[in-house]
């Protein structure tokens, strides 16, 4: 009798712990404040580097959108710049051809255009996986870029569309030479969308994405509409990439067809792998390190800075498969173990 009571208690305990795990894993940890505190601190510490800072933040957003499909759903894409570029051109053409200069509604329209493109291309392309998908996404982006080149009158071709104007943010904050407003604008947009992505990742929908990544055959067997789920997350990621692109146009006040470059698709993938895919904050670390290295090294050695980035990438995939963030997590675990008596 007594023995069976003990077993029952152990079972109950396990059940409570399991319930608590699912009920609390989405709560904010103290470390999660760190990147935001640092981002705000950077505003005060490097007041003359804010133009660069806003570029870093929008690349974090771009990498985050890729993390949603690559890190969480396991969709490998080499053409994510397509949505960045579509958002960038939507924001540019709105103001230039449409006379629509209000920036925030520009972001929303850019998100919508990129989302439609994501849904349409995803519906067709996400029937494929792996290498086929990789090539198809790559080819789609190249085709978009060529289309832009064909319509040079509208897009400005590789010379781009310079001197775009936007109305002051919220009708109040005009853009200063140092990009202070731009930086805070990009940070606010990043924060809002980051929280949205974070919510999605911990939702039942986010759980099914993990299921698809881990074993797509079993997802089919338990009756999951896998294709619909993939198209949904692809559409969301496209919309966010579109916002990042629109931010690029608005903060630089110009855009060229270079936004569709393979370099842009590959660069964001490298950032994510460096930082660690599938862990939200990997996008932060990867984009910041990549951008800062690029900025610093391209001054020191304009010809060879890519060598250093390449070397870092090789070291990461060889010795830190879960990215720099994964490495940091391992280090912290070791530290925690060492502290225990």
């Amino acid at each position: 009798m007594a023995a069976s009571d003990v077993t029952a208690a152990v079972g109950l305990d396990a059940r409570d712990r399991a319930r608590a795990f699912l009920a609390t894993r989405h709560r904010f940890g103290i470390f999660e404040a760190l990147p935001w505190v640092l981002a705000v601190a950077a505003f005060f510490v490097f007041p003359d580097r804010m133009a660069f800072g806003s570029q870093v933040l929008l690349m974090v957003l771009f990498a985050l959108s890729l993390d949603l499909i690559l890190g969480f759903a396991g969709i490998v894409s080499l053409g994510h710049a397509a949505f960045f570029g579509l958002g960038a051109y939507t924001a540019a053409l709105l103001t230039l051809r449409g006379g629509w200069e209000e920036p925030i509604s520009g972001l929303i329209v850019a998100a919508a255009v990129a989302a439609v493109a994501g849904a349409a291309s995803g519906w067709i392309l996400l029937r494929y996986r792996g290498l086929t998908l990789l090539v198809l996404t790559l080819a789609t982006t190249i085709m978009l870029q060529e289309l832009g080149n064909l319509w040079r009158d509208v897009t400005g071709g590789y010379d781009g569309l310079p001197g775009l104007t936007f109305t002051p943010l919220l009708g109040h904050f005009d853009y200063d030479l140092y990009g202070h407003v731009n930086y805070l604008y990009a940070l606010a947009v990043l924060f809002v969308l980051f929280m949205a992505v974070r919510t999605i990742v911990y939702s039942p929908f986010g759980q099914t994405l993990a299921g698809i990544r881990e074993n797509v055959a079993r997802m089919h067997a338990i009756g999951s509409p896998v294709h619909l789920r993939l198209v949904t997350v692809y559409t969301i990621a496209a919309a966010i990439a579109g916002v990042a692109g629109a931010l690029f146009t608005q903060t630089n006040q110009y855009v060229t067809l270079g936004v569709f470059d393979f370099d842009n698709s590959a660069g964001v993938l490298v950032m994510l792998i460096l930082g660690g895919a599938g862990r939200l904050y990997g996008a932060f670390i990867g984009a910041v390190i990549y951008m800062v290295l690029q900025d610093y090294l391209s001054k020191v050695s304009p010809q060879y800075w890519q060598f250093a980035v390449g070397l870092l990438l090789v070291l990461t995939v060889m010795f830190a498969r879960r990215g720099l963030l994964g490495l940091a997590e391992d280090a912290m675990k070791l530290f925690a173990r060492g502290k225990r008596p």
Partner: protein
Amino acid sequence: MTAALEIKNLNKNFGALPVARDIALALPKGARHALIGPNGAGKTTLVNLITGVLRPSAGQILLDGDDITALAQAARTRRGIARTFQINQLFRGLTVLENVYLAVAERMRASHRLWRPAGAEREVVDEALGQLEALRLADDALRPVRELPYGRQRLVEIAIALAQRPRILLLDEPAAGVPSSESHLILDAVGALDPDIAILIIEHDMEVVFRFASRITVLVAGAVLTEGPPQEIRADERVRAVYLGQEFRHG
């Protein structure tokens, strides 16, 4: 009374190779039916045809009298067909709880929800935990499934299928690869399943087959050799010949 699952004249060719030839099979509600046959007889192919992974070249599959031959895999699952896999098909990087949660959430139509945490779906969590307890897996709920010993992974394989609350359950060699010291765990779990579920089990261990099944179908080279109650199959000379006698002597 219409059978829960009925298969009529099912044919499937891989190119020129016929892998299912005029297969007929009926499972009434609560059936305990075994499918046996030598390697390459087409047993797993038949499971793939029933669940919709493969489309038949000809023939019909009826669920409660409704023709489901044209339905996709997910639609058949929603109508109550579940399966386990001969080789584990688990969400290896996820916890045991998450593995079962996924199946429950799909069935309860909670898994399209984007804006609330997975843990806030109380009904889904409760059901998933209940399923784990029924198979004595609750203590491992938070362990990544790949860290479990193989025998317990096989139990998770069954737990996912049961979490779908199937009316038809197809068990593809549930104890395959499990050391004999642990296989009783699997067989006990299979033996204790809801008597209302119609079960088709593929199994090589004749002792298990004769103990568990009330009817047996023998499949050879994609065609039904014979079907009948265990004592009839046991006495059948053709079946003995197919198995070269070896495994049957144990039974």
